[in-house]
């Protein structure tokens, strides 16, 4: 903060990175429209925007993954350079940690860092492993982190992988000015690990570097950033001192309309309605003897820290993962109890947590993705009715307000929020009585997020029973009138109505952890 203020007062300080007139045109789309950006020395500069606003494109233009349209100018510390050619300058101080990190998870931290930094060699050119380990530990110690550097990254926690990626980006950069670009570093992190990452970012700032921090999560912007630049629909909305904004205002700048950062559906606790879903005796890797009832029109939240078993509930209930208890049973609408262990197929529609791996079929179009669960309903005499399929799909595209040029476009051309809507549409098209959602707003921007909340609320209003788990407490607060809190696989609390608050949720999740 201090450095940024000094620069402001001087009024003459050269920005560490200056971009002018950056545009990027894809066939049929202008993803960036002459964006200017100044990043001051020593500041944490947040870059925010809704899905499809051009954040990722800007980062990819900066890193040279995309060629920039002609007419753009860029300067590092006052020295002009050609965008996309930062790598040709070994001295360049613009470093990237991309969203997918680009680590080899089968290898450990030592090997991953050595792939960039080189190995410490001993006699005969053989690797001197003890010196190598020392060097790795030093690189991590700069960030104030100690890790088991010999453990494969696949076994490390997501935040530890991110930290190793940051350490790798900083190789050969002892101290002083520079720019570290973090592209959505918290997108895949559980909320509980975000704080640890933010500490690392502060550490990098303390080393004298500037950080360009791309994120969806507005609370992080206020936690960490000095200034924030908002992109909307490919153009720059503005750059603001974070101290002059609040979450509400920032969200509105991103969406370009009124939004409520503390949005809640405020639905009453459901008591009288029929029980639609009953589960009993459900156990998984962590979950032990879980039972619950969900009534018509109810949105039941399941909360818990990583390892509490909460994250398993959607998969176990929907029948997509075999329970460890042979007696686990599920009953829908007071019908017959069905054993889950013998379940051969997914009966209850599920919106999975990991969209790319578990939900989206990349080479398929929006249409093919959306109609996947209801192919039989558009089939006549065992042939697919293309016309009926198109009608069904365009119906859902309209109902869910999915932003898409044509439903024949590949689903991967959509933003995260719109992909999520397609997946929800896939489940809803089957007219289910029950829907389970895992991480319903992961990688979804704030405007679309509210649209998804409202949508789920409307569905419940129409009688759908919903089970939802999320590591983002805001999801549960916005959606649920009843939340079951799990700890170490067991149910430890139930919160209802106005008692569903962030404070109560965290207390319930963590209090029991300490007790044990």
């Amino acid at each position, binding site marked *: 903060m201090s450095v940024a203020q000094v620069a402001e007062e001087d009024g003459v300080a050269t920005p560490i990175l200056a971009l002018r007139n950056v545009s990027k045109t894809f066939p049929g789309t202008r*993803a960036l429209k002459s964006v200017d950006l100044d990043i001051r020395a020593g500041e944490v500069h947040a870059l925010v925007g809704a899905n499809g606003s051009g954040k990722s494109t800007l980062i990819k233009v900066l890193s040279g993954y995309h060629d920039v349209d002609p007419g753009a100018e860029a300067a590092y510390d006052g020295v002009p350079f050609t965008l996309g050619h930062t790598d040709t300058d070994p001295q360049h101080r613009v470093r990237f940690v991309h969203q997918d990190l680009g680590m080899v998870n089968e290898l450990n931290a030592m090997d991953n860092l050595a792939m960039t930094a080189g190995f410490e060699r001993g006699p005969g050119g053989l690797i001197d492993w003890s010196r190598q380990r020392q060097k790795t530990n030093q690189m991590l110690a700069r960030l104030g982190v100690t890790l088991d550097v010999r453990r494969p990254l696949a076994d490390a926690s997501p935040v530890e992988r991110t930290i190793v990626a940051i350490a790798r980006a900083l190789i050969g950069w002892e101290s002083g000015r520079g720019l570290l670009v973090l592209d959505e570093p918290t997108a895949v992190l559980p909320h509980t690990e975000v704080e640890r990452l933010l500490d690392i970012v502060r550490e990098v700032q303390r080393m004298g570097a500037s950080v360009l921090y791309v994120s969806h999560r507005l609370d992080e912007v206020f936690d960490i950033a000095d200034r924030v630049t908002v992109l909307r*629909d490919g153009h720059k909305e503005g750059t603001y001192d974070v101290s002059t904004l609040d979450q509400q205002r920032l969200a509105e700048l991103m969406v370009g309309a009124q939004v409520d950062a503390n949005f809640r559906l405020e639905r009453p606790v459901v008591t009288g309605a029929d029980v639609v879903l009953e589960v009993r005796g459900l156990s998984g890797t962590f979950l032990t003897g879980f039972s619950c009832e969900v009534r018509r029109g109810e949105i039941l939240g399941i909360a818990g820290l990583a390892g509490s078993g909460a994250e398993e509930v959607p998969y176990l209930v929907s029948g*997509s993962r075999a329970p460890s208890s042979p007696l686990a049973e599920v009953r829908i609408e007071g019908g017959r109890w069905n054993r889950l262990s013998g379940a051969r197929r997914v009966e209850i529609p599920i919106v999975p947590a990991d969209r790319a791996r578990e939900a989206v079929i990349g*080479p*398929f179009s929006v249409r093919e993705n959306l109609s996947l669960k209801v192919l039989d309903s558009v089939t006549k005499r065992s*042939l697919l009715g*293309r016309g009926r399929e198109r009608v069904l799909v*365009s119906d859902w595209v309209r109902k869910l307000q999915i932003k898409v*040029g044509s439903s024949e476009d590949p689903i991967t051309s959509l933003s995260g929020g719109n992909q999520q809507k397609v997946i929800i549409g896939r489940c809803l098209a089957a007219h289910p009585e029950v829907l389970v959602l895992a991480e319903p707003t992961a990688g979804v921007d704030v405007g679309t997020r509210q649209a998804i909340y409202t949508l789920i609320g409307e569905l419940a209003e129409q009688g759908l029973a919903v089970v939802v788990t999320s590591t983002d407490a805001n999801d549960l607060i916005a959606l649920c009138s009843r939340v079951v809190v799990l700890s170490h696989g067991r149910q430890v609390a139930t919160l209802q109505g106005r008692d569903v608050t962030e404070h109560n949720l965290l207390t319930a999740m963590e209090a029991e952890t300490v007790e044990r």
Partner: protein
Amino acid sequence: MSAEVHETLNEAAPDADSLEAGRTAVSSEGHPAGLILRALSPKNVSAVYVLILIIIVFSFWAPDTFPQFATVRQVLNSNAVVGLAALSLAIPLSARVFDLSFAYTMSLTGVTTAHFVASSNWPLPAAVAIALGVALLVGFINAVVVVVMRVDSMIGTLATGSIISAFITFVTGDTSIISGKLYGGFSEIGQTTRFGFILPVYYMLVVALVLWVVLEYTPLGRRIYATGFNTEAARLSGIRTKRIQFCSLLASAFIAGIAGISLSSILGSGSPTAGTAYLLPAFAAAFLGATQIKAGRFNAWGTILGVITLGAGTTGLALATAPPWAGNMFTGVVLIAALAVTTVQRKPSTGASLLSRLRGAKGS
């Protein structure tokens, strides 16, 4: 077709949202002329252009023998079995399962049919039925190994192929089954000609037609592709992915059986190694097919186009009296070229050169 065009137009026009988001509709999208141009673009049917090039080249290289209707007949007649084999592969490949044992299944069914025709007095249909039953049994074993026992399909079917080949040697002693009885009804299966083409050409077209309808116009086809593209997502959407992969191996073995019977009938004998030669050409045609018409998806007509293109090239080389290694060389080169071109097309960035893309990736 024109109804489809209209629908696309109507869908594209009133989309105010997308305009707001700065996404102006792509000009070729939904425009009738654009659709036709796209259908004929080298991205979709590059093999057709290669085929035209082949015809031109060999018309000059072998002007006396190549540019004749007899060449068309020869290409199709001598590649019908390749076509059947390639179509059999396209099914499991669509569900992301390899079946390397199909070539041995072809030999096995050929030998089986020849055996029952030659050394017993059973009617021909019974012998064919038994052979197809044997093919299904092989498919079942493959499916158990790959789907139930979860052995990687590439290695698993290589192993079952080896076992089949051992079994054939054990039964036949590695000698072809030759008998006068094989010149009767048995030889008609593969040697009868209609309109200049042998029956296996028609078998191939029928199988392609069925496969086209199933993959393109039935829920099953959509589920097969979904399974192949993202098995976990397909499973979580309620698709019985294991059943689909299981059945794809059954179907593949069955069609390989048809190919094997046709082949032994064409040869007029039950050769214990007849199928092995079809391993490379069939895979080449199937993978070349996946770059054609419906790029990125194994598909029936793309496979047929692949068979014809590769067949025309090898036939032309033979007619031009090129050295014997030229055919395999040609197949290999065309396959790599087709796959390389399609992989490059799928890259998200169109402008950046490969080199600068690599540089960009290095920084990540």
